[in-house]
């Protein structure tokens, strides 16, 4: 709201103008009234003048003059009263007008204010609506974004899971392949070494020795050494000999798989044929 210093004296200037106008009117009325006394002629006055003598007539005239004067005065008075009343009425009317105007203005103000308020309310409402809509839109957008993000995340997760699964599968397959290759070559090696391990009848089931073996990629045994003895030198030697005699050992071509066989052990442990 705009600050107005004279706000507490509304219409002050107008009142002064009115007062000046009223006085001007009054002065004008007095001036006009005086002229009026000398001038106006009434039809009745003409009739009376015919019936009176001179003196009498004079007197009459005088009296009439007086009466006339008195009447004039009264008239003036009445007029003045009238005017006063009129003025008052006018004033009242003016005041009423004014009040009415004020009322109207007030009402207008009120209305305006109401309108303004309404407008404001509406604006606010609209604003709120806009905001709400904006918020809603934002919310929607966010939600959408979230949804999309979530979807994306899910997709990514799924994709990544799928990839992981695929990777895992590939890895598992590779491992399984490696595993089966390892197992295959382990079996081949076991068979080859077993076939060169001569049991001439002296080994018993409580004999056991661990032979550490080093190979080169051609499968040639470059070292076979008992690292845990059976306690029987002949048995230990038979185990070492079996490994040497089996040289070269069958090996996978895959270099990575060969690594398993670069350095490994044989556990010689006779068992009854089942």
């Amino acid at each position, binding site marked *: 709201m705009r600050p107005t210093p004279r706000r507490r004296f509304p219409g002050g200037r107008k009142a002064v103008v009115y007062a000046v106008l009223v006085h001007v009117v009054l002065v004008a009325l007095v001036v006009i009234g005086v002229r009026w006394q000398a001038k106006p002629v009434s039809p009745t006055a003409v009739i009376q003048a015919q019936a009176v003598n001179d003196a009498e007539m004079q007197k009459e005239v005088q009296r009439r003059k007086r009466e006339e004067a008195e009447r004039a005065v009264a008239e003036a008075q009445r007029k003045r009263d009238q005017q006063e009343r009129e003025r008052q009425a006018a004033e009242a009317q003016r005041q009423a007008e004014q009040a009415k105007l004020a009322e109207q203005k007030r009402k207008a103000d009120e209305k305006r204010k109401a309108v303004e308020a309404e407008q404001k309310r509406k604006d606010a409402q609209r604003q709120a609506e806009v905001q709400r809509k904006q918020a809603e839109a934002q919310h929607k957008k966010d939600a959408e974004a979230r949804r999309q993000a979530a979807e994306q995340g899910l997709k990514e997760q799924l994709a990544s899971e799928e990839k992981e699964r695929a990777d895992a599968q590939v890895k598992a397959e590779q491992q399984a392949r490696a595993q089966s290759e390892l197992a295959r070559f382990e079996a081949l090696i076991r068979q080859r070494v077993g076939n060169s*391990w001569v049991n001439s009848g002296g080994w018993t089931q409580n004999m056991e020795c661990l032979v550490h073996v080093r190979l080169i990629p051609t499968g040639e045994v470059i070292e076979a050494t008992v690292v845990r003895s059976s306690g029987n030198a002949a048995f230990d030697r038979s185990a070492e*000999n079996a490994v040497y005699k089996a040289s070269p050992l069958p090996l996978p071509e895959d270099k990575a798989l060969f690594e398993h066989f670069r350095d490994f*052990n044989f556990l010689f442990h006779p*068992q009854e044929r089942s």
Partner: protein
Amino acid sequence: MSKLQAVIKFVVLVALLSHVPPAAAILTIEITQGVEGGLPIAIVPFGVPDKERLPQDVSGVIEADLARSGRFTPIDRKLFVSHPTDDRQVVFKDWRIVKAEGLVIGSVKSAGQGRYQVEFRLYDIYKEKQLAGYSYTVEGDRLRAVAHQISDIIYEKLTGERGVFSTSIAYITRERAGKGFRYKLQKADADGYNPVTLLTSSEPLMSPAWSPDGTRIAYVSFEQRRPVLYVQNVMYGSRTRVADFNGINSAPAWSPDGTRLALTLSRDGNAEIYVMRLSDNSLTRLTHDPAIDTEPSWSPDGKEIVFTSDRGGRPQIYRMRADGSDVARVTFEGDYNACASYSPDGKSLTLVSGTQGRYHAALLQVSSSALQVLTDTPLDESPSFAPNGRMILYATERAGHGVLATVSSDGRVRQMLKFQEGDVREPAWSPFNRSTPN
């Protein structure tokens, strides 16, 4: 597959699956099955100076010894790439080619005055190192003995067990002599060579039995027209009559400590088993059965005696405590089981097992009573274990003649021993020599 084997395989599998670096969990491959057979061994003919004729083919004797044992398979000499006779000539690669597990080289040189110097070396072909090397200087007639000693050294180095090539066997021969027969108690090298006659008789001789120390042999002689039991000193030939009771005196068996003999006597009317204390010839009767009880044999710990009895209707093997208590039947398979004797480890018996008129040397696992027939010859008799338990000596028939044969105690390798003439029966393998090499 045993549980242990399964566990080990599982562990190996887990170690593989866990994909840890080889350094952390090194691959271990378990070898549980080998091939049954003799160890392949290369025996290079021993070097001999030019034009020198030797009384014995030393390396040939060694090769035959090792082959007969069943523990070795000598590699065919035709496959040899080189023929080293001394250390500097050995190229190990040559012997890896033929997959040998041992290489034997050596030489025999005259040392003058009928003496010879024998040198030999045994090599580990893969470790490329010498396992044994000896030099002997002996009379020409001792060359076989040296060869057997070398065989024993090789056997022990490569199998971890004592060889029996320097031990002896005792047996009975029968030859035609005029209208009748001539019987001999002989002893020979374990391969049947170098026979020495300990006793000659025109009447049957039976059941030689070595004392545990190898110095005496107990036997039954019919020289008095009935069976009488003697103990004779192997080296000096002196003998003692230990059982000359009425009726049968037979089937002597030495207690493991050599102080007693178990034997069969019928002096009380029926063939029963007794134990005689040799210090005073006192007797203890162990069996009391109307059936025939005979052929006692002591367990190596001296706590039990097995014997043959027909108390069940047919001859079968029974076992009892050394005091005659707790008699129990041992054999259940076959129509006929007789002549049992313990292995040196006491875990098995060798015996004659008969089914449908065929009699085979067989092995009985004491713990399980599982019976394994070792031979395919039809009339085997008198099986006895070599002192290391790895071979069994028995008598059998070939072309109507009694001959001796050996079989590895897993039944894998059988070999006839060479004899010149007549029938050979009732063999008995001696204990280890008192004086053995290394």
